[in-house]
């Protein structure tokens, strides 16, 4: 029997007090396999032990929520007997170590979370954060991650329709790869993971188990150091072709009534799937590991239980339905094996070569796993930066600089490597405020977006948390969709540091408040902590994935200007907030100041107004104002238009020009409105008690403001040039 030494515990990420608890639970020393199982089940990644206490404060209910957090993904009702199932999940640590496979398997994992509940995946998105472009690793990581996401998503035939990509030095040693999948299911055909029926067969299907990805969950629950490159063997290898077969096989099997419960094998593989299914059902499982389909000879129980080989599923079948299920797996050329049986013992009993190799109580490892109330300190408030303290430069020059900075530069080089049209329902492609994907065979559509502004969250985690939710709400409203629910992907540093824990606590508080006030509940999510390298943490990055519904896809707006001679209308108040703005960072070289506050009641009213106007057909184009402020928003509408329609703007004299152009005041939208509709739009705005102002006209081919002008062509050129230039590729022509 393996000697349990302090070194062995350390290599499993188990702290001394946790080991004490293990001894109490078992009443004896664990063997090596059992220790490995404790280590992954109690890892931060699987147990959420540092964040659970705070996640419970998030609002998760609404009349349209069918299933909130706790299952593989969240489920909302979209009417007509249909449901949308979605979730976002991180694959940060593996993507840094091996960008192609790390990102690819991140996509594979989140797809499985969604189709395991009975949905056909209909859209993928990704929120990516890379280090400073000048960092020697950044280019290699961008190339690998983008190729990996494309390589997997393109092959499985699910369109990658949107996302976001930012660069910041804080991600130099810890990139973020957050992948989101949205799926469509029949409301009465949703599958859950709680095991039921003593004596029912426990069935393994999909790919064979190999030695890849062992201890991935433990790796994802620790900081990086100078030896992290040595962790490459803990990264899994993806096989999107098998995933495609798995999707089709699952959906075919789900069309029968043979399945009692089903769960994919994600982080911690066979261990987490079997423990979670048993725990939710209050049952036990007896498994014979000899029956697990294996890719390699001589695998130990430890390796079988901790492997994170991809494209594998576990399910409980109704008795006597094994042959029916196996026939479907045979058709799709997937492995199928009855590996165990449900028991009433509440224990996991594992056998190998006829001997019991592990015998563990289930609950303490799953639903009743540790929960910590870690000490935290409130973040230090940043001073509000006065407009007068921010230097003014020519707005045309500043606009060019901003549109060519890494965060605002066109991401065409990325999304053209993703198949964003397969499945034939992509109505709004990448590049807009939110992707719009039609519900197949209907006139309805879902709108999807991912948002967070990490520099705001760093400056003020509470406001930044509110802003992330508000921006998702705004992006969905900007295409005319009713915001329904969100998934969150909380990426932070080491929670054992009180200041990092403070970021977590405060940003969750902000998110929760915004979700409550905007009727925008959280239905699923994922937490990624320990994003630190040699003690330096990433910017706090609680990414929000928002989903909205369009009852009539024809009544949707896009951001491109449609014609010359329309009025440009600004909804929302402009005070010229430059603290923590992109202008301050990119033009003045200053990363400081309090971020713009979010007024949620006004946010809600502005959203309702904009959705009403779009639904009434009174808006030709709509774009929310976010990073870079008003002038950037207007320029983006011009750059996206056919023929590069320009805009002439009248800035008010009450505000310094640079503050009006580049302030990042929240809760704002820019609309293109035909003269015929203008009176009605202004009246409707007053009726909604929203600030509204006509700020200019579309037309010509330049953006002009305050006596300065710049050609739209020129803006397009600098906006499109940065990323291909950085990646050393040619400019892809149009």
């Amino acid at each position: 029997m393996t000697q349990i030494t302090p070194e062995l515990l350390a290599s499993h990420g188990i702290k001394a007090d946790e080991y004490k608890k293990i001894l109490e639970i078992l009443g004896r020393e664990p063997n090596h396999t059992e220790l490995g199982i404790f280590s992954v089940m109690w890892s931060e990644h699987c147990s959420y032990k540092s964040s659970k206490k705070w996640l419970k404060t998030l609002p998760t209910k609404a009349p349209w929520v069918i299933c909130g957090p706790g299952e593989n993904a969240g489920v909302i009702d979209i009417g007509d007997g249909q449901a949308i199932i979605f979730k976002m999940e991180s694959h940060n640590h593996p993507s840094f170590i091996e960008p192609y496979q790390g990102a690819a398997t991140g996509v594979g994992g989140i797809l499985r979370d969604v189709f395991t509940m009975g949905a056909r995946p209909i859209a993928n998105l990704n929120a990516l954060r890379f280090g400073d472009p000048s960092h020697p690793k950044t280019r290699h990581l961008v190339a690998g991650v983008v190729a990996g996401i494309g390589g997997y998503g393109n092959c499985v035939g699910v369109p990658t329709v949107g996302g976001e990509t930012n660069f910041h030095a804080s991600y130099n040693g810890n990139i973020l790869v957050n992948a989101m999948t949205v799926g469509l299911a029949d409301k009465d055909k949703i599958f859950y993971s709680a095991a039921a029926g003593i004596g029912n067969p426990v069935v393994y299907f999909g790919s064979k188990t190999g030695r890849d990805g062992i201890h991935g969950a433990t790796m994802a629950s620790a900081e990086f150091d100078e030896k992290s490159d040595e962790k490459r063997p803990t990264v899994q290898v993806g096989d999107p072709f098998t995933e495609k077969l798995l999707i089709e096989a699952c959906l075919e099997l789900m069309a029968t009534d043979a399945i009692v419960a089903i769960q994919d094998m994600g982080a911690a593989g066979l261990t987490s799937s079997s423990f979670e299914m048993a725990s939710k059902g209050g049952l036990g499982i007896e498994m014979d590991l000899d029956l697990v389909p294996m890719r390699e000879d001589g695998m130990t129980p430890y390796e079988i239980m901790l492997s994170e080989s991809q494209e594998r599923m576990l399910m409980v079948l109704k008795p006597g339905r094994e042959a029916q299920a196996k026939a479907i797996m045979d058709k799709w050329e997937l492995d199928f094996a009855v590996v165990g049986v449900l028991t009433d013992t509440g224990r996991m009993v594992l056998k190998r070569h006829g001997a019991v190799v592990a015998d563990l109580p289930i609950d303490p490892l799953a639903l009743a796993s540790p929960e910590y109330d870690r000490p935290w300190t409130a973040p230090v408030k940043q001073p509000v930066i006065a407009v007068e303290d921010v230097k003014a430069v020519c707005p045309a020059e500043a606009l060019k600089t901003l549109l060519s900075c890494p965060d605002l530069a066109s991401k065409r080089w990325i999304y053209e490597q993703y198949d964003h049209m397969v499945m034939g329902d992509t109505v709004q492609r990448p590049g807009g405020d939110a992707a719009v994907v039609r519900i197949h065979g209907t006139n309805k559509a879902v709108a999807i977006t991912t948002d967070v502004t990490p520099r705001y969250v760093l400056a003020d985690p509470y406001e930044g948390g509110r802003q992330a939710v508000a921006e998702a709400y705004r992006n969905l409203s900007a295409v005319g969709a009713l915001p329904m629910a969100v998934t969150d992907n909380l990426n932070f540093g080491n929670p054992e540091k009180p200041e990092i824990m403070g970021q977590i606590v405060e940003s969750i508080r902000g998110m929760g408040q915004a979700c409550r006030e905007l009727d925008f509940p959280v239905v699923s999510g994922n937490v990624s902590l320990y994003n630190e390298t040699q003690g330096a943490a990433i910017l706090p990055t609680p990414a929000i994935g928002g989903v909205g519904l369009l009852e009539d896809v024809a009544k949707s707006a896009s951001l491109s200007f449609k014609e010359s001679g329309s009025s440009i209308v600004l909804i929302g108040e402009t005070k010229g907030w430059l603290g923590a703005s992109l202008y301050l960072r990119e033009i003045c070289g200053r990363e400081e100041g309090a971020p713009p506050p979010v007024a949620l009641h006004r946010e809600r009213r502005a959203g309702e107004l904009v959705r009403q106007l779009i639904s009434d057909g009174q808006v030709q184009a709509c774009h929310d104002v976010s990073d870079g402020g008003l002038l950037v928003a207007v320029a983006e509408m011009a750059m996206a238009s056919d023929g590069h329609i320009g805009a002439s703007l009248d800035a008010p004299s009450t505000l310094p020009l640079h503050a009006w152009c580049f302030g990042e005041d929240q809760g704002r939208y820019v609309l293109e409105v035909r003269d015929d509709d203008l009176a009605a739009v202004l009246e409707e705005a007053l009726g909604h008690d929203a600030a509204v102002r006509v700020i200019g006209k579309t037309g010509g081919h330049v953006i002009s403001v305050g006596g300065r002008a710049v050609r739209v062509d020129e803006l397009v050129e600098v906006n499109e040039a940065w990323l291909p230039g950085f990646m050393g590729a040619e400019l892809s022509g149009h």
Partner: protein
Amino acid sequence: MKAAVIVFPGSNCDRDVAVALEASMGAKPLMVWHRDTELPDLDLIVVPGGFSYGDYLRCGAMAAHSPIMREVKRQADKGTRVLGICNGFQILTETGLLPGVLMRNKNLKFICKDVHLRVESNTTDFCRGYAAGGLVRFPIAHAEGNYFADPETFKAMEAQGQIAFRYCNHRGEVTEAANPNGSLANVAGIYNAKHNVLGLMPHPERLAEALLGGSDGKMMFDSLVEALR
């Protein structure tokens, strides 16, 4: 018109093309599993896009040897119209139904975007509805669409009017800058010598409805229905 869509493990544009066909035909096409060995009498067989067998060996190479392809070949020899889109085009070159090969894109990357195409001939059942020399916009979505044929073969193909589409710019000019993947002479699609088999890398089925951003692709399905009704 009676049409069938062949489904391989890893096909992923089978539903998309079935939807486009149904919109033009007014009836659903037959969906045929790759292990089947027989087809009924048909007017049109579509080999759809995707990643058959994961494209792990070489694009289309495995699918070309699946049981159903013997039957597709037999019907093609008999004169049945066969349309191969994207991975379907790769499969048709691997089976020898179409000449040449499709290699890795010149920039070594997957490319998904709309491209402009010049219709080189409008005398076939596939393209009757288009103007000769006309300009259409279809999307591409592939990593291996770089067409090549040896000079002798290609000369014969050009002489027999076997070039169906060429990549061009928005003014209809066939230029190097408009060539997205490095294809020989900007070739985007080709016919066999008898003009009953068409393979093309762009996806007509993806822009066959105005809501999705354009409907130039619909004319191909309408033309087939018109010719084969």
